[in-house]
């Protein structure tokens, strides 16, 4: 019985680690694709001598950092709550 409980707990720990890894990989993929498309768009605007290029850059980057920081906070909180258990 104890062996089953221990197996269940370790499976759950592995699942929580896996979910967090998938979350960070998803964030990296979305941010990478965002930077790629934003770079293309800024280049297009610059080639047309538009003054919107700089504003585009700043607004997009602010949102991107918000996404990165909030994902990091969620990951750290999940690990803290499950593995450290206050």
């Amino acid at each position, binding site marked *: 019985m104890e062996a089953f*409980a221990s197996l*269940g*707990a370790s499976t*759950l720990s592995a*699942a*929580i680690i896996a*979910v967090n890894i998938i*979350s960070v990989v*998803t*964030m990296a*993929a*979305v*941010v990478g*694709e*965002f930077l790629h*498309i*934003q770079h293309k*768009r800024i280049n*297009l*605007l610059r*080639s*047309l*001598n*538009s003054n*919107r290029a700089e504003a*585009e850059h700043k*607004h*997009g980057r602010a*949102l*991107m950092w*918000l*996404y990165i920081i*909030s*994902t990091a906070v*969620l990951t750290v*909180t*999940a690990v803290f*709550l*499950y593995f450290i*258990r*206050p």
Partner: protein
Amino acid sequence: MTEFVPNTNGEYAVTAFSTHWIKYVPPTVIFFLLLPVALTLFITAGLNAQSYGNGADMLFLGALLLLLLVHHWYFHRILSEAMVDVIITNKRVIFCQDSLLRFDDMHEFNLQNLIAVQAQKHGILQNVLRYGSLWLDTGGSVSTDLGGVIPQVPHPHYVAQQITTERRMHTESS
């Protein structure tokens, strides 16, 4: 008066803008409805995991999954929309549509081939919030044909007027 500097091809951007902020409303409403539910489950299960054993652990995993799903879905939607979508130059109208990792479309309408521009504002919401759609008729298309329609354009009548002016100037110069 704004002075436009043309590039080596003699093309310059007259205006560039993002579609109306209404596009952020549906994902934000869904996000703020689901976020408190997921956060409450997540923190409650996390804090009670020790006292309630495996049941609380499973609840914690479920809450974490829901929270991460809502979080990534929301930022994916917001980042996909947070770029300049419509660029009007003295030679063409460029409309970009993208959803990160799903599709990246760019529609170009040459002003030379443009027959008509139709601005549409339908319904109370569009009239109050001043946005609508633009139908760029390049011949053979209808206003319900999504390929020629730019949705959620802020101040569509003013934009239509700008396109018409540029088209007229382009026709006169060529």
